[in-house]
């Protein structure tokens, strides 16, 4: 069972991730439970899913964008973004856009090839939950959030860039 880190702690996971079948067919939605559905399913069965009795989350693949759910972002308590390969950096942009442009306040979860050494930047970009790849040591990964004490750029964690904070500190 893969470890889930949420808000820098190891957490239990009540969510069930629905994936496409081997031939790309859309998954069936169970009768109850908390589910994370793929974007395509949401786009196709939006009305049905709106009446779903459990909690409903959605996941975006790296080639999908928050634009596709722009008007609905606030409906979801959870949005997951898939990293097909750890070196694929599209998810970092998707996360920032969800947080900074679309005002998403719920759980933003990284899924897929999610590795120890990538969590720091992911968190900067707005992820607060990480479904680690099976082989990752969750306990060891908890230390990674303190890798760097600051960063130059504006980010979701620190919306004011370092240069403005430096100037403010210099004035006070």
């Amino acid at each position: 069972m893969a470890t889930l880190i949420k808000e820098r702690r190891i957490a239990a996971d009540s969510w069930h991730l629905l994936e496409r079948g081997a031939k790309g067919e859309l998954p069936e939605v169970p009768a109850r439970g908390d589910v994370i559905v793929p974007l395509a399913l949401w786009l196709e069965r939006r009305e049905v899913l709106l009446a779903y009795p459990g909690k409903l989350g959605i996941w975006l693949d790296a080639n999908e964008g928050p634009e596709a759910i722009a008007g609905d972002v606030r409906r979801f308590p959870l949005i997951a973004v898939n990293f097909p390969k750890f070196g694929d950096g599209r998810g970092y942009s998707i996360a920032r856009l969800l947080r900074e442009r679309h005002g998403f306040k719920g759980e933003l979860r990284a899924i897929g090839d999610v590795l120890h050494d990538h969590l720091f930047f992911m968190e900067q970009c707005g992820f607060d939950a990480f479904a680690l790849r099976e082989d990752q040591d969750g306990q060891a990964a908890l230390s990674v959030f303190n890798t760097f004490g600051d960063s130059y750029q504006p980010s979701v964690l620190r919306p004011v860039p370092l240069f403005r904070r430096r100037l403010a500190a210099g004035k006070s």
Partner: protein
Amino acid sequence: MYRYDEIDQKLVDERVAQFRDQTKRFLAGKLSEDEFRALRLRNGLYIQRYAPMLRIAIPYGLLSTKQLRKLADITRKYDRGYGHFSTRQNLQLNWPKLERVPDILAELATVQMHAIQTSGNSFRNITTDHFAGVARDEIVDSFVWCEVIRQWSTFHPEFSYLPRKFKFAVNGSKADRAAVAVHDIGLHAVKDEKGEVGFRVLVGGGLGRTPAIGFVIREFLPWRHLLTYSEAILRVYNRYGRRDNIHKARIKILVKERGPEKFREEVDAEWAHLKDGPATLVPEEIARIEGRFTRPNYFRLPATDSGLDAALATNRAFANWHKRNVHPHKKAGYAAVTLSLKQTGIPPGDVTVEQMEKIADLADRYSFGELRVSHEQNLIFADVQLSDLHSLWQEVKALGFATPNVGLLTNIICCPGGDFCSLANAKSIPVAEAIQQRFDDLDYLHDIGEIDVNISGCMNACGHHHVGHIGILGVDKSGEEWYQIEVGGNQGEVRSGRGASLGKVIGPSFARAEIPDVIEKLIEYYLTRRDSDAERFIDVVHRIGVEAFKESVYGNADQRAAHRRGQLASA
């Protein structure tokens, strides 16, 4: 030099700790080769043909003597006693041991240096004009802007896993000495009619296997928008750049596939959200960065020096060196000096530890304790008093760095090639050497005049062959080393009116031994066709076309056809 503040220093120290932990986990078998590869490359560590190679960042090529001495120490302690200055203004060591690299990084951090992002699919070292801050045609001091971008691009959380590497070049003078048109983003400082500073922004230039000249996405970007606009470009690239094929992953391919106009629209649409946001620069920040740079404490000096004039009049060798390797300076009584690392018989850019230490001593005595690495793989003393030039020349000469060939044919840009690099198809250093030997007559060299000859050992083009006036590319033909010749490339508008261009291949490739003859034919042909000494090789190529030069090497179409028939008949 930009001097770190506490936060800059802490980030570099934290980076060392991070890489130490990653190396430890790799050696303990907790990180796969593939996963560690992505991490070590971000710290400049390659696994090369014979041993690892470590690329140490020299941000925008600027180096203090304290740093150079540390580099010499490191080279002595962890390597085999010499380093290689690269065309990206960095220093490469070829033999460090993997498990000791964290220690090397820790030593570098003590002199405000690092190997951050010198490889991998992220922002690379920002390069600039090696005469920044001293050029007479200066618009802005590009070092300041390079440092602004260095900070923004260091550990950028969103853009650390780009489709491919990403290179910025910044030029702060009228003449383009930073080759801005062949970078992913090139910035050329300009002033508008009100005197406000901004940048002409070029996107999508590059060398490699698909060379391209960047297109002007914005004629004038006011300086305060530099970071938000860059962020918009990078976000479009990060989201839509190709990731399915490493050879099509640079931003130039995205620009080409989208078309420049469509690409500009996408960037503008993204920028509409970011413009005037928190990353918008403010004058206080530019002043703060400017203030953290050490500045030479110049003396007030007369514009000429009688001792210098006398030495120039009487010493021909000194005068030759002065003509080629001494450059004008914006302060009266000062000059910039190039130390040529292109001595025949020495791989271009290579320096031993003893030489590094001696160069550091000279820079302390003659140039305020600082020096620069140029993308042409030479070293620059930027602030030398005119009255010191003659004695500096004597000392530099004794070290072997006074070859008076800057801008001339033997000042060859050359990658490490097949002698060192696992990517190379062919050796490049012996080719440079053979050309340097062929053109060893200094009078002839000066007569030929300014020409850039660039050599790459493979199509990754680290030796910038596409923008050499003559470019030489090593190719592999069924396991043998062959060389293609290009003519007509130009790195940028160093002189007004002649912008960046890419060379054209003139015909079938040659064996290594033939290259000096081919170059000689091209040069001799040029000499017969130039109007005057003032018309450079590249000017003649542009005036009469590449075809004529091709004929000078291969003969005209009839001769070529006859040659082919002869070959077929004998086969």
